[in-house]
């Protein structure tokens, strides 16, 4: 049996977007993403240009999954953050429970600033994700009514 679906309601999505917008300004970042640790993109804010955000989320999750396993091999429980510094663009990934806050920044910001401001926002993100996780269980039961209305024809039509 697969896990209970993770359900994001409209008002929760707007709150996430609000937090990401604030982090983006406070960190002087180019873009900020919230990604599930299994690779599903949740939300983003900022200048993403033509970036493939779905692939970006999947790779960020793969990156953290690999480094977390490396942490365990050397006796650490987890690396709470992962940093990639490039010549112009850098990435800071903060692990918050089962999600990742990913900040993309350039020369207009600094790693120190991003670290401090991200840490402050982590608490808000963690609280919101906890709330969403708890409500997902309740919502999953409610949404069953909606999804139970999906017919075989609806599913078949996806492949026609």
């Amino acid at each position, binding site marked *: *049996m*697969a*896990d*209970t*679906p*993770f*359900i*994001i*309601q*409209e008002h*929760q*999505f*707007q709150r996430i977007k609000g937090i990401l917008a604030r982090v983006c300004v406070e960190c002087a970042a180019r873009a900020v993403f919230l990604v*599930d*640790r*299994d*690779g*599903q*993109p*949740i939300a983003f804010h900022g200048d993403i240009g033509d970036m*493939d955000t*779905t*692939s970006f989320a*999947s*790779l960020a999750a*793969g990156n953290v*999954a*690999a480094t977390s*396993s490396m942490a365990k091999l050397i006796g650490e429980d987890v690396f709470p953050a992962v940093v990639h510094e490039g010549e112009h663009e850098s990435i800071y990934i903060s692990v918050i429970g089962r999600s990742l806050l990913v900040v993309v920044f350039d020369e207009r910001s600094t790693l120190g600033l991003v670290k401090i401001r991200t840490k402050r926002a982590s608490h808000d993100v963690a609280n919101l994700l906890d709330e969403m996780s708890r409500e997902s269980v309740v919502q*999953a*039961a409610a*949404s*069953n009514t*909606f*999804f*139970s*209305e*999906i017919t075989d024809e*609806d*599913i*078949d*039509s*996806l*492949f026609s």
Partner: protein
Amino acid sequence: MTFINYASREINCKIVYYGPGLCGKTTNLQYIYDSTAPQAKGKLISLATETDRTLFFDFMPLELGTVRGFKTRFHLYTVPGQVYYDASRKLILKGVDGVVFVADSQDERMDANIESLYNLEENLQSQGYDLATIPYVLQLNKRDLPNVTPMDELTQELLRKDEPVFEAVATTGTGVFDTLKAVAKQVLTELRKG
């Protein structure tokens, strides 16, 4: 774990292609990628070695269309098949909604298929899943080669429940979309069941 976003009206599901080394997992994804309209797919990401063996995973997002106003997007992953990449395989199974086991039909790969299938069962269990209940499809690939094991022998060894079984030649696309459709349908049916 299926993600349902009511704000953007999207359903996101994760499907993993599993199987022994060189069985054709990446070829399945490559065929799907090559045969899909540009607006329905994202980039095909391959984390591969210099000799094109999968090192960590291949990934492509595929949008199938809308169901009752919700966009359905499937995130397709492959695992590295080689035995020593087991840690990577475990990681990729996290949050999986459906699994395709790609078996290599060649006689000499029977043991590798069986070993990989046991490995799948173990790794699913370690992530809290059960092969008996998760959406699952068996694909018998490379049916065009001369040295293949008869289908009934393969299914006798590899069938785990009443999963759908498809003969395939991933290089030419035979059976590729039938396999994908069968697993995607099971995932959506599971969602309907709640």
